[in-house]
Each structure stands twice: as C-alpha cells, then as structure tokens.
C-alpha cells in the first residue's frame, strides 16, 4: 500500500457555475435584464414583484417571471394576474433554485422568447441561506427584507446580503406599528454590503416604487 495525495482544486458547484455562465451570456445576447429575488418566506417577494411587473407593463415593458416554490403554484397564479407570462418551478423540497432548473424552464416556455423580453424576474424559494450559493446567471441579485423581520437579518445572513447587488426593504407602510428601526437596518445592510443600493418600498401604497423602477431601467440600459 502506498499513500498518495491527489490535488484536485475543483469547485464543488462548478457544474452550476458553468451553466450559470452560459445562461448569463444568453440573457445578455437577448437583451433581457434578469433579476434573482431572494428573501425569507413571508417577506413579500410576490407582492413586491406583482406591483413591479404591473407597473413595468403599464410603462410598455415586456416582462416575465419564473417562480420557485417548494410545492404550490399559488405565487405563480398571483403573479399571472398581472397578465405577464409566469412559469412555476416546483423544486419538490429542494431549498433553492439552480441554473439547471432555470435552463430547463426557459426551454419550451409557450409564447416566451428571451429576446422578446425586457425583464425576466426569478423569484427564488423563500430561504436566506441556500440560494446564495447558486448563481442563476442573473445580472442583479436582490435581497429583500421586510420591516417585520428585525433589523439584524443582514448580520444573521451575511452571505446573502454580501452577495446581493440591491437590497429592498418591504412593507414600509407598517414600519411604525412594527417599531422598525430604520437607521439600524440601513446600517446593518451597509455593514455587510458596503455601498449597496437600498430601496424602501411598499407594494401596498407604492412607496419607493418609482426609484426602484428607475434603477431597473438604468440597469437594463447599461447591460452588456
């Protein structure tokens, strides 16, 4: 018997990273801005996305969404009410979306061609841990946090917040009753991800939406 050490130096998620890179190239070639929305369950991703998609459609933009969910298609049905194409991805217990699932659901999507879209939103499974490891080829990763969740969420989940390109605080219309400490939340987000754009929004009242939509338009215009 001889003992030998074999050097490998191989990324464990290499397969996902390669698929994500292919997807990213496809998105850019098609001229579609792709966003990956990540938050805890109950943050209000769906309500926020519903409002975003409705407002973008009203401005003449072509939008679509892929929606990850462990079991149901409730969120997809809610989003479809905007009239935009929405496709459900049931992960059946898997805690995150990966690049392979996205690639598969982009194929044969009835009536949807990437190059006919301006924006594609990917609503990830409600989870603040696992989705942060899986690149979906998105241009913008959005970390969402609601005023009901506690200002220290960014400190508790630094991986996600550090890897995000934009942060969205949701439900600010009920910040008062929730005793939401705005300054602490902004400070914590900045401590984990210095310089990140932060949007304070309410899907209910529309607060903060103008700023968010302007950010999307700029990001789309400067892509690729």
């Amino acid at each position, binding site marked *: 018997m001889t003992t*030998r050490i074999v050097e490998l130096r191989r990324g*464990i998620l290499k397969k996902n990273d390669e698929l994500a890179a292919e997807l990213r190239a496809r998105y850019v070639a098609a001229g579609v801005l792709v966003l990956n929305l990540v938050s805890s369950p109950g943050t209000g991703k769906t309500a926020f996305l519903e409002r975003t998609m409705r407002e973008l459609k009203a401005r003449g933009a072509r939008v679509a969404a892929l929606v990850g969910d462990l079991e149901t298609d409730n969120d997809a049905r809610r989003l479809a009410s905007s009239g935009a194409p929405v496709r459900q991805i049931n992960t059946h217990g898997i805690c995150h979306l990966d690049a392979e699932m996205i690639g598969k659901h982009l194929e044969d999507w009835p009536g949807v061609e990437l190059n006919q879209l301006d924006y594609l939103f990917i609503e990830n499974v409600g989870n603040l841990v696992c989705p942060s490891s899986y690149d979906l080829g998105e241009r913008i990763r959005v970390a969402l946090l609601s005023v009901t969740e506690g200002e220290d969420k960014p400190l508790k989940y630094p991986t996600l917040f550090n890897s995000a390109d934009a942060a969205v605080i949701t439900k600010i219309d009920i910040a008062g009753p929730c005793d939401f400490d705005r300054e602490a939340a902004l400070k914590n987000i900045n401590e984990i991800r210095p310089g990140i754009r932060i949007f304070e929004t309410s899907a209910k009242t529309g607060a903060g939406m103008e700023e968010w939509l302007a950010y999307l338009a700029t990001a789309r215009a400067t892509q690729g």
Partner: protein
Amino acid sequence: MHELSIVTSIVETVTESLADYPGARVKEVRLRVGALASVIPESLDFCYGIAAEGTPLEGSKLVVDVLPVVVHCEPCGLDVELDGVQSFRCPRCGTPSHDLRQGRELEIDSFEIDEIDEAKEKK
C-alpha cells in the same frame, strides 16, 4: 440545508477522479470553504457519512479548511483579512470594502488515497 447536495457532488467528483487509481481507497478528502460559503462544516460532516456509504469514500474523513474573508482595501492598497463576517471594513483603517478577494470558496482541495502497489497487483 443544501449540504447533502454538496457532499453528493463531492463523492461523485472524487469517485470520477479515482478512475486513474484502480482499487484505491480514499482515506481523507480536504475541502477549502470560505467563511462566506454559507455551508456549515458540522452539517457537511454529518451528510458526508451518508453520501459516502457504499462508495470508495466510505469511512474516509472530511477535513474542512475554513478560509477567512479577505477584502482589498483601497486606501491601504492592501488585501486585508477580516475577523469575521459581521463587518466588511478594513481592520487597519476602518474603510468599508466590497472588493472581495477570498471567502466564497467551496472547493475540493485534494484527497488522500491508499494505492494498491503494482507489484502486489501483479501476483
């Protein structure tokens, strides 16, 4: 909890590489995991035992080297190591930095095997 899919990928990758070393048994697999990789070494270890069962990796040890976060500090002109993942500021001058140079790694560094000696094999 995506640790099981991570260890499954480790077992698959190492098993593939073993094709070059017929009959070898794996003693140890060494990982490089960044402090921001969002995997828990204890959970990896727990899942590893299950994923390795019935493979040439069964009974081997998983060694996790945790790599601290390193950011580039513009004013200092240096890559600096952070104490933890609660504040992304240069420990020397306090300037915030998002220029990450290390900390998201999730990779198999190497593995150790017991090879069957060729002489013995020929008998």
